[in-house]
């Protein structure tokens, strides 16, 4: 994992469907830091994460990554290569088993993780060869968590990472984020619940 020095957001404005969602947003997260994004329903948390990922373009403002070497990454295409994405939708294919999906993502993202170990870490070892449609909501979310780990990307963007998870699953998420940050990664999480770890907070009005 190429460690990052910081994520910088400056004067960001977001328009969706012709409507201003937020503007003048700024934030800065150092390597090893966790930023949680809070705010009411419809305040723009998901939109902000998509802007950071470069999946959509801001009306105004910049998002910038700095590498430890001092390099600066401003182009969305380059930024995309540093991002581990845990979206609102689980991105899970019905036709493939958990192990197959994970293998595909590891190969596609060029990671070197041990897929089976990752699956058992998220509590899916017994389900690894089941058809996906046999999984419950929380089990699918766990698969998405496994995929995130396998990606080997330094900047994690998490949209409601706790949704659908049981108590043990929630503490698993906290552990995973903790380990990721301890290794020098950065995480930004939009959530309505506390993650239970130290973090900076950004509140969208």
């Amino acid at each position, binding site marked *: 994992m190429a460690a990052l020095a910081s994520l910088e957001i400056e004067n960001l404005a977001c328009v969706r*469907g*012709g*409507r*201003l969602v937020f503007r003048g947003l700024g934030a800065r997260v150092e390597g090893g830091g966790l930023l949680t994004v809070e705010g009411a329903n*419809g305040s723009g948390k998901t939109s902000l994460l998509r802007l950071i990922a470069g999946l959509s373009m801001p009306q105004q403002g910049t998002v910038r990554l700095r590498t430890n070497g001092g390099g600066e990454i401003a182009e969305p295409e380059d930024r995309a290569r540093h991002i581990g994405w845990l979206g609102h939708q689980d991105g899970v294919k019905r036709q493939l088993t958990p192990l197959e999906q994970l293998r595909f993502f590891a190969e596609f993202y060029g990671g070197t993780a041990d897929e089976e170990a990752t699956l058992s870490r998220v509590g899916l070892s017994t389900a690894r060869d089941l058809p996906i449609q046999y999984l419950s909501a929380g089990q699918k979310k766990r698969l998405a968590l496994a995929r995130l780990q396998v990606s080997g990307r330094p900047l994690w963007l998490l949209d409601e990472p706790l949704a659908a998870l049981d108590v043990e699953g929630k503490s698993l998420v906290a552990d995973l984020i903790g380990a990721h940050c301890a290794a020098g990664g950065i995480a930004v999480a939009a959530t309505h619940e506390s993650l239970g770890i130290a973090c900076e907070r950004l509140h969208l009005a």
Partner: protein
Amino acid sequence: MLEYANPKRFMDLSGALLPWLGAVAALLLAVGLYLSFAAPPDYQQGDTVRIMFVHVPAAWIAMMAYGLMALASLVSLVNRHPLADVAAKSAAPFGALFTALALITGSLWGRPMWGTYWVWDARLTSFLILLFLYLGYIALWNAIEDETRAARACAILALVGVVNLPIIEFSVQWWSTLHQGESIVRAGGPLIAGVFLWPLFLMALGYTALFFTLLLLRMRTEILDRRVRTLALGRGR
């Protein structure tokens, strides 16, 4: 050019221009139609030749409208200018209308001339495809709720579809067809007598003025619609 592309400027300018343009269209069409009926019957075709004055300009406008739509789409993709979106979106229904008009008048003409309403000849077929391109374009606009997204998706479609224009234009040269070859706008001067040329010319100008009148009207309503919608969205939250 771009300074007129400001929607506010556009509204002012088009508002001032519209009545004049409308009047010109009406005048040209009136004179053109009068001359069309005043022209002598053709020695071969008899009175059916008069369909030409409705048919040929309609076909021209139909193709020009697509060209215009594609051009506006290009501008919209490159410059991201909302006015270009509005122009492209507004041109489509009238393009479709004139295409339908050319198809209908053409097939009415075909009955006396070729003995059938329809043949699958290259020009007719490629022109029918033009109608489908228009319909697809309109359907795509309607299918995507999000305005900007729809605009850009449609722009891509319009540009890809541009390949059909040369096919229509040159179909009469590439394949042997039943349909008339180039007889008016051609190297070496027109093959048509002056009595027919004049009304045709006036009708073509009249159609053009009519098309732009309709286009401007439609663009204005579209812009007003968007303003209302943006206001409504601004309240909804």
